[in-house]
């Protein structure tokens, strides 16, 4: 019979294995999804069987399906089953599946702690190996903490196979549990000298990763690495070592010198490109003066990497790269776009005053040749980037730049018209000396507008006309022939341009008009002026009919104005002065951050009321409008409104003074322009006149080249002059010390710009605060590893050795809290609360301990508790003994302990922490510790997990758990049992053992907190007497909340929906940092932070019945105000009460 069963299962095992599945999928190409769904059904059947071989086969197939993208998380528990198989072949399949499917939030991971520990200590090295490999994929902070010590032991295992794996996985452990780094480091260091090269390599890998965080710690290891570097022959290890040295050299310059020799040796001897590349990289990154050039030649075989390396060289040795300019420019011809783009990046970094013109000239040639608009546009933006970088630092001749921009406008089909336009505007506004030239060029552009209007699409090149028109209008005083430009601007063809450009045309036509009037006013013959007016009146109606509102409005306004002016002109009234007053004043560029940086003047409180605040009732009327109720600004009101007259007068005076000194402050008086000119500016600086022998203004002819030539001539001249001067100087100095003057190749500083240009900086407010950009990334996962390793180890830092956490000394939760760092826990507070409750209940004296576990990361805490329990079951005898002793001393004193857990929702995939309720239990002798965990499942069910721990010396059996149901909450009993029957606890408890049982409660309404009374009856084996233990289950409202993440947009939508009722609470005297406060709310009340801005945060949570609870938490000083919204006001009120209670115990 038994044989039959075995045979049958073997047959089934061969039903379909992985190979069959793979083949099957290949044979069902048309209906793959259908085939796979039948396979999954089969697998589900297989998983239900008891035969581990069948299960393993099923899990193996699941792993394959998972790879294909099918979700197999439902089989997580079966995977754990297969993992715990004693047969290696199955165990391996289990671990493989786990490493593929599990992640940090998989809830069953907490079940694996003991299994993994068992496997780690298995005598079979492959068991250990497979456990280590698997662990590296799904280690959680809790696993890391619980297993850190075991893995550390394995680092000294006799077999190198295990050692190397253990060393490598330690890195993952460090990441998840940074506290382990310091205690484990000495052993890690030892492993660098391990006899086995594989272990060495693993240690190098780990330290290399660690050193990226805090290289200083690893400086002392340099000699060791130096030895390894000269002895190792493994290229991969060498690469890592060289990388590590790359991180160390900046800290210890002497190291660099020492490394030159081995590095150059490697460069010349190695045949591996990767090693060569790494050496070059390090040579470059460090301050070694190696012969970089020759190396670059060699690596130019691998162009892409060569270019990458070059960009690194550039940062330290710009000159050595600049000599390879031609090589890089050649790369622009490469077929591969990645290489071309890299080369462009490189060019951006290597321009200087000297070579800018040349490089841009080459780029312009490429622009002409380039195929495809995308790449051409890329080139165009790069040219502009290169030229405009660091505030036009490298441009010596702005006339050249303007001509480049004008040339770029001839590109066909570009989408960067807007970019060119903004550059033109920027240069014209900020470089005053160039305005005359710019205006002339722009006038030509306007004249030839028909060349540019071919491309009317958005951001097309016609955008340039926008800039041209504006420049011509704004700086019209520089125009040579304003009438002609005006005529060009009012051509009928203009009406085909996009609306926003037309608007600029119209407005600037008016500016031009004003200038023309001014010029012509002096003339005796007034007909010219009148003709201009007539021109305006003739042409403007075209724009008045425009479909674009902006154009229409401006045009009709200006048309009326011109008509009026014409009338005045006919009466021979001088109007020019008044018309030009319309457009008086300078426009200065304002820094983008200027507004933000305006410092709040001393004594100004932006939150203070200007008028008396409206009465309380009024503010309440306003409440419904605001998303959250307004905070009453009690504290800041009266003080600031009572500043005396004198003080005000003094301030006014000071302000005036300040304004007078501020050149950028535009005063109300018409003399503003004058004030501006008084500041030392460009006007006073003589502009070098260049004799332009070439007619620059011929349209359609590339002219930037001529500038290059001119520039060269000019530089030569300058150089000659300089040499002369130097000679003189030298002669003078020869009598002195004979100091050397390096007159070698000209350096950056030697090049003086053709024009003395004053680049107007962007305006910033006075006393602008320095920018406070934080360059540290708070999300860096490795941040935690920034630990000082040189400090001696403290006792408290020892790695946790297995112990019964739950049964530990009363301070253990606090310790855990420290260890976890991120989980603030307040056991004391809760317990005091409990105490109070109990006093109310007039119960007998007792000690209550309660542990609350933080929920996030959810699985983390869960597994902790689980492991704590399981440890309790297996290995905590020592602790127990102690406890028992204590208990004897305390004799009748009763102890109780509570353990609250947040548990996992098995469905839906979300993590819900749940029942924060407490159990109050009163106990006669033997049962002394009772851990209770809450757990919720769907809408109306609450699962309470109770951990029974027997702390007595006697064996307990026949335990029955019963709760007195309330109308609202009922214990779910098996069918057929009466409403008052107790539930049998499905196990017996030997002394010192704990176990967990779960009970399901049905809850109808979750809006109110409730307490349920219950009893536990049991029989003590020796005495055979029935004992009874009373307790209370406390379901708080918070326990019905489930931490649910919420995105800010969804959150905003929710608040706007108007379905939510609001309420608020104010907490006084809360003395803790804001983030602690938030953490505490998250932890105790299952909220998640949606958004946080300074001292204000929005939080969200959901109840098991789908109520939304939104909080807005604000803090100022010791006052915390919480405005809340929820669709169920009673629930909200209770939750707020509970929050208040949490903080009242601070």
């Amino acid at each position, binding site marked *: 019979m038994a044989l039959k069963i075995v045979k049958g299962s073997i047959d089934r095992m061969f039903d379909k294995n*992985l*190979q069959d599945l*793979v083949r099957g999928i290949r044979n069902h190409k048309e209906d793959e999804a259908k085939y796979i769904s039948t396979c999954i059904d089969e697998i589900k059947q297989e998983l239900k069987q008891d035969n581990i071989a069948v299960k393993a086969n099923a899990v*193996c197939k699941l*792993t*394959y399906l*998972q*790879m*294909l*993208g099918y*979700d197999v*998380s439902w089989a997580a528990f079966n995977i754990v089953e297969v993992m715990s198989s004693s047969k*290696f*072949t199955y165990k*391996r*399949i289990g671990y*493989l599946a786990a490493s*593929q499917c599990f*992640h*940090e939030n998989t809830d069953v991971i907490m079940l694996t702690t003991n299994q993994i520990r068992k496997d780690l200590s298995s005598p079979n090295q*492959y068991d250990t*190996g497979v456990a*280590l*490999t698997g662990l*590296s*994929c799904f280690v959680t902070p809790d696993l890391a903490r619980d297993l850190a010590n075991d893995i550390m032991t394995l680092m000294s295992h006799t077999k190198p*196979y295990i050692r*190397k*794996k253990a060393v*490598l*996985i330690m*890195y*993952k452990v460090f990441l998840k549990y940074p506290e382990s780094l310091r205690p484990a480091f000495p052993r890690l260091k030892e492993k660098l000298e391990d006899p086995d090269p*594989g272990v060495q*390599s*693993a240690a190098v*890998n*780990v330290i290399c*990763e660690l050193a*990226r965080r805090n290289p200083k710690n690893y400086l002392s290891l340099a000699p060791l690495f130096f030895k390894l570097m000269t002895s190792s022959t*493994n*290229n*991969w290890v060498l*690469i890592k070592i060289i*990388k590590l040295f790359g991180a160390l050299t900046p800290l210890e310059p002497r190291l660099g010198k020492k490394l030159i020799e081995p590095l150059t040796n490697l460069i010349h001897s190695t045949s*591996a*490109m*990767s*090693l060569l*590349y*790494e050496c070059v*990289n390090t040579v470059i990154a460090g301050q070694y003066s190696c012969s970089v050039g020759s190396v670059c030649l060699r690596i130019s075989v*691998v*162009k*892409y*990497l060569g270019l990458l390396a070059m960009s690194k060289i550039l940062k330290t040795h710009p000159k050595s790269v600049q000599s390879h300019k031609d090589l890089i420019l050649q790369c622009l011809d490469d*077929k*591969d776009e*990645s*290489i071309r783009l890299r080369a462009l990046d490189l060019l951006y970094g290597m321009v200087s005053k000297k070579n800018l013109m040349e490089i841009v000239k080459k780029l312009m040639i490429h622009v002409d040749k380039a195929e495809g608009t995308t790449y051409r546009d890329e080139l165009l933006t790069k040219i502009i980037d290169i030229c405009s970088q660091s505030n036009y630092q490298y441009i010596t001749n702005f006339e050249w730049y303007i001509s480049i921009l004008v040339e770029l406008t001839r590109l066909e089909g570009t989408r960067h018209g807007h970019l060119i336009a903004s550059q033109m505007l920027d240069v014209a506004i900020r470089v005053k000396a160039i305005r005359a030239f710019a205006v002339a060029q722009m006038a030509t552009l306007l004249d030839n507008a028909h060349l540019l209007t071919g491309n009317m699409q958005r951001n097309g090149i016609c955008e340039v006309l926008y800039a041209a028109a504006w420049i011509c209008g704004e700086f019209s005083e520089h125009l040579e022939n304003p009438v002609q430009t005006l005529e060009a601007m009012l051509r009928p063809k203009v009406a085909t341009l996009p609306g926003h450009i037309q608007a600029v045309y119209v407005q600037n036509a008016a500016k031009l008009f004003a200038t023309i009037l001014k010029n012509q006013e002096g003339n005796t013959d007034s007909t010219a002026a009148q003709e201009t007016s007539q021109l305006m009146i003739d042409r403007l109606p075209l724009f008045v009919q425009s479909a674009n509102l902006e154009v229409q409005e401006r045009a009709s306004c200006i048309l009326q104005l011109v008509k009026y002016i014409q009338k005045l002109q006919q009466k021979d009234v001088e109007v020019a002065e008044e018309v030009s007053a319309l457009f008086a004043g300078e426009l200065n560029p304002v820094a983008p951050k200027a507004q933000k940086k305006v410092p709040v003047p001393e004594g100004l409180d932006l939150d203070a009321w200007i008028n008396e605040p409206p009465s309380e009732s009024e503010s309440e009327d306003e409440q419904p409008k605001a998303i959250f109720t307004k905070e009453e600004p009690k504290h800041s009101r009266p003080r600031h409104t009572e500043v005396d007259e004198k003080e005000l007068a003094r301030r006014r005076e000071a302000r005036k003074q300040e304004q007078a000194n501020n050149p950028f402050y535009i005063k109300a008086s018409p003399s503003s322009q004058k004030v501006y000119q008084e500041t030392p500016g460009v006007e006073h600086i003589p502009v070098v006149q260049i004799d332009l022998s070439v007619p620059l203004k011929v349209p359609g002819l590339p002219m930037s080249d001529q500038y290059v030539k001119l520039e060269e001539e000019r530089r030569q001249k300058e150089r000659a002059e300089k040499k002369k001067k130097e000679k003189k100087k030298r002669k003078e100095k020869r009598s002195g010390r004979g100091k050397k003057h390096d007159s070698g190749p000209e350096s950056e500083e030697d090049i003086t710009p053709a024009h003395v240009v004053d680049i107007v900086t962007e305006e910033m407010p006075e006393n602008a605060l320095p920018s406070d950009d934080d360059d540290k990334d708070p999300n860096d996962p490795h941040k935690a590893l920034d630990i000082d390793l040189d400090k001696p180890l403290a006792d408290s830092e020892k790695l946790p050795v297995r112990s019964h956490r739950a049964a530990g000394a009363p301070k253990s939760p606090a310790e855990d809290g420290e260890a976890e760092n991120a989980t603030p826990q307040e056991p004391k507070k809760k317990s005091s609360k409990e105490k109070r409750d109990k006093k109310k209940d007039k119960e007998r004296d007792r000690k209550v301990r309660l542990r609350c576990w933080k929920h996030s990361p959810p699985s983390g805490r869960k597994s902790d508790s689980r492991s704590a329990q399981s440890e309790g079951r297996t290995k905590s005898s020592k602790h127990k003994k102690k406890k028992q002793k204590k208990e004897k001393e305390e004799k009748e004193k009763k102890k109780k302990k509570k353990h609250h857990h947040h548990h996992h929702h098995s469905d839906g995939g979300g993590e819900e922490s749940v029942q924060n309720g407490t159990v109050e239990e009163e106990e006669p002798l033997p049962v002394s510790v009772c851990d209770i965990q809450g757990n919720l499942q769907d809408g109306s069910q609450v699962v309470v997990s109770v951990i029974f721990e027997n702390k007595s010396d006697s064996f307990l059996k026949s335990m029955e758990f019963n709760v007195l149901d309330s109308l609202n909450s009922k214990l779910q009993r098996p069918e057929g049992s009466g409403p008052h029957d107790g539930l049998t606890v499905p196990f017996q408890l030997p002394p010192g053992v704990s176990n967990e049982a779960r009970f399901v409660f049905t809850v109808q309404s979750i809006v109110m907190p409730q307490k349920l009374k219950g009893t536990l009856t049991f029989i003590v084996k020796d005495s055979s007497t029935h004992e009874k233990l009373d307790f209370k289950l406390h379901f708080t409202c918070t326990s019905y909340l489930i931490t649910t993440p919420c995105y800010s947009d969804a959150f905003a939508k929710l608040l706007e929906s108007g379905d939510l009722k609001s309420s608020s609470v104010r907490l006084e005297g809360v003395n803790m940092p804001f983030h602690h406060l938030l953490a505490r709310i998250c932890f105790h009340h299952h909220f998640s932070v949606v958004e946080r801005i300074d001292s204000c945060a929005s939080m969200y949570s959901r109840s098991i019945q789908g109520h939304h609870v939104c909080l807005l938490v604000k803090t100022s000083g010791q006052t915390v105000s919480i405005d809340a919204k929820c669709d169920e006001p009673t629930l909200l009120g209770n939750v707020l009460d509970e929050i208040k209670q949490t903080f009242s115990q601070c």
Partner: protein
Amino acid sequence: MIKFVLMVNRQGQTRLSRYYHSVELSRRAALEADVVRYCLSRKKDQCSFVEYKDFKVVYRQYAALYIVVGITDSENELSIYELVHNFVEVLDKYFSRVSELDIMFNLDRVHIILDEMIQNGHIVETNKSRILAPLTAIDKMVES
């Protein structure tokens, strides 16, 4: 650090995937498809390193099979390029002239080989016989 190792064929079907940092299942499919498309679109004379989002991709083609490795910025591309070849050599040695079918039907074995070579996103072993030692031991164990 190595972020993932993929084996895909020309049709874009995944033959093996191994992630060394957790990626959601739904994202994996998108990422794989994306990366593969990227690699397939490149010509033979183009280089084997591609920048993709915040990491780099190193790929190598063997007949119809592509091996694609995602690495962080700090990793040496060429060393990974050589590692891929090493991996293929090991597979070749074990399966004696490895083919796509070998990989499909012996996925678990390929995984063992890969795990011997890369752990935790780091190269742990590159010596062929040492990589294969556990696998041969396991094979013997299964046979007996």
